[in-house]
């Protein structure tokens, strides 16, 4: 019985996703936004390619959120604020010290790791396993504090980092932005490094073990509070790395973090909460569908957010486990 419901929900999810990806095309054809010529196909390819690369970056910071969730069952609402903080750190090193945004990662990531560690130690360690409202509120308050401190220092001005602004012409008609390619490669590299760390390293394995069963991890001699702190540190580092990669592509101001939090939510729900690879796939899928909607539906850019929220709510309803998440008991 359980098994069959399980399989059925999988089919429903597949059906939902297929429908979600077909809708933009259908609406596009209906509203004459789809042209059947080579030029248009090239444009479509460009949009999808850009979407995939965008998704890589989204996925990277979503992975941080999914790690925290997996290990502690906490939803860190301040995750996006850490992304924003990462963008500002990168910007500071770029403008005041003159360090290349990518090289700056060597400095910003350790800083981020320590920030994550401290947040966990001072605020969250005591509330893991308690009522879920408490960490939600704590991280929310933390996010608000970060936003307004950054605002007090940097004002609400939008900032950008001019970095590799040119296009890479793949074919006659398909062009991809260089900064996106660099970001995507970096994001893939960082995500995969963390993935291998989790797979191979002793502490990485302990993180996975704690995620599966914290009590048993404890009797194995794992100090789960250390693990919590390391996880938070890693998640913060991923968020800040995400921020760095976002900062070389887009403008940012203290309020942009909220958007990334919501995006990361949608991604981890789609991919399956607590599932690492799921988050990576979810990130790319979400970014691609956003691009398709924006490209083919009239006034589509305004509806992009519906895609994220709609997908999030529907996936939660159809199959709370998402694409690859573990079964809930």
């Amino acid at each position, binding site marked *: 019985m359980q098994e069959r419901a399980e399989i059925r929900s999988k089919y429903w999810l597949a059906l939902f996703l297929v429908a979600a990806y077909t809708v933009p095309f259908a609406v596009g054809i209906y509203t004459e936004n789809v042209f059947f010529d080579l030029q248009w196909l090239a444009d479509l390819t460009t949009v999808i390619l850009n979407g995939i690369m965008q998704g890589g970056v989204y996925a990277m910071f979503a992975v941080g959120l999914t790690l925290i969730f997996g290990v502690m*069952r906490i939803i860190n609402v301040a995750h996006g604020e850490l992304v924003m903080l990462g963008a500002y750190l990168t910007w500071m090193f770029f403008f005041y010290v003159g360090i290349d945004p990518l090289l700056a990662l060597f400095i910003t990531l350790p800083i981020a790791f320590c920030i994550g560690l401290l947040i966990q130690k001072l605020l969250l360690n005591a509330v893991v396993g308690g009522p879920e409202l408490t960490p939600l509120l704590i991280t929310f*308050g933390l996010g608000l*504090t970060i936003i307004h401190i950054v605002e007090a220092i940097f004002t609400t001005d939008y900032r950008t980092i001019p970095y590799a602004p040119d296009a890479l012409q793949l074919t006659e008609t398909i062009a991809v932005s260089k900064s996106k390619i660099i970001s995507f490669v970096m994001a893939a590299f960082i995500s995969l490094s963390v993935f291998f760390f989790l797979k191979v390293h002793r502490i990485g394995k302990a993180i996975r073990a704690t995620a599966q069963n914290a009590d048993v991890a404890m009797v194995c001699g794992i100090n789960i509070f250390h693990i919590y702190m390391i996880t938070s540190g890693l998640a913060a580092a991923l968020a800040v790395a995400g921020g760095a990669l976002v900062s070389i592509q887009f403008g940012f101001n203290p309020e942009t973090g909220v958007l990334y939090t919501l995006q990361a939510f949608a991604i981890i729900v789609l991919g399956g909460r607590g599932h690492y690879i799921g988050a990576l796939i979810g990130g790319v899928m979400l970014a691609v569908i956003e691009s398709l909607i924006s490209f083919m539906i009239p*006034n589509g850019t305004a509806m992009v957010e519906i895609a994220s929220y709609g997908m*999030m*709510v529907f996936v939660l*309803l159809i199959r709370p486990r998402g694409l690859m998440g573990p079964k809930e008991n």
Partner: protein
Amino acid sequence: MAQNEHLRNFGMLAILIIVLSVLPPNLNLYQRSVIMFTMMYVVLALSWNIISGYTGYVSFGHVMFYGIGSYATAILVVDYGWHWIPTLFVGVLVSFVISLCIGFPVLRLKGPYFAIAMLGAAEGTRVVATVWDSFTHGGEGIGLPNVENSFETYFAMLVVMLVTIVVSYWVGHSRFGIRLNAIREDEIAAESLGINSTFYKLSAFALSAIFPAAAGGIQAYKVLYIDPETEFFILVTIYMKLFAMFGGKGTVIGPILGTFILYIVQEITWVKFPTAHLIAFGVFIVLVARFMPRGLMGFAIDKGWARKGMVH
């Protein structure tokens, strides 16, 4: 609970009504506005409390119903020429129906998933309000005809607040409330005792959705200009939560007290310290959540200042 205790509580309520009713003519416009908005947040905090305080289903998207209410009022007044009072009932009705439609699937989700789903639903509604140009005027917003309305809105909000308080009190003291509490403590156990948890959750959810709609409608008529960004502002949900939590969730007095204190502290501080106030606000949320999760009333009960029965 003892009969005289009910009497005493209603006595306190009566005093509140009298004080709030005789005040307005002696106040200037700004003062009336401050009290009106305070009452509005009392309504919001108490409504949030009905679903999240009693059943433990923490909603991160209650601003949705507030926004629906304000849009109902604005659209009906501007595009259909209605008088503003009947529009409140339409807003309430729409909110009620939507809360049932959304609540039925979403309330199956547990804990943080419910919270996220509600957040998504609220943000989704905001986008719909932005995109559905022909009906909601999109991001341009809706301006209502200009009239002096501070007395009307004040008393309308007072009435809504009283209804909310009475309903909350009833929820807190009835079998209905006891069953909601049972669901909060252990839903599976509650079901095994024969409590139809879906029915109770859904009822609580719908109850908690209608008052914000009325409050939103009055607010729209008071502000006379609405747009999706402000009507579906996520911070409104956060205020609801914070005020209720600060006072003590799962109680009736708690959210009222929490709102009165916090809202007015905020009113004083932001004028003087615009940025510092917002930082302090964030820190304050963290501290309340971390060290005072049961709020002022919980604290008072622990200290023996207030009896448990009084607040439940």
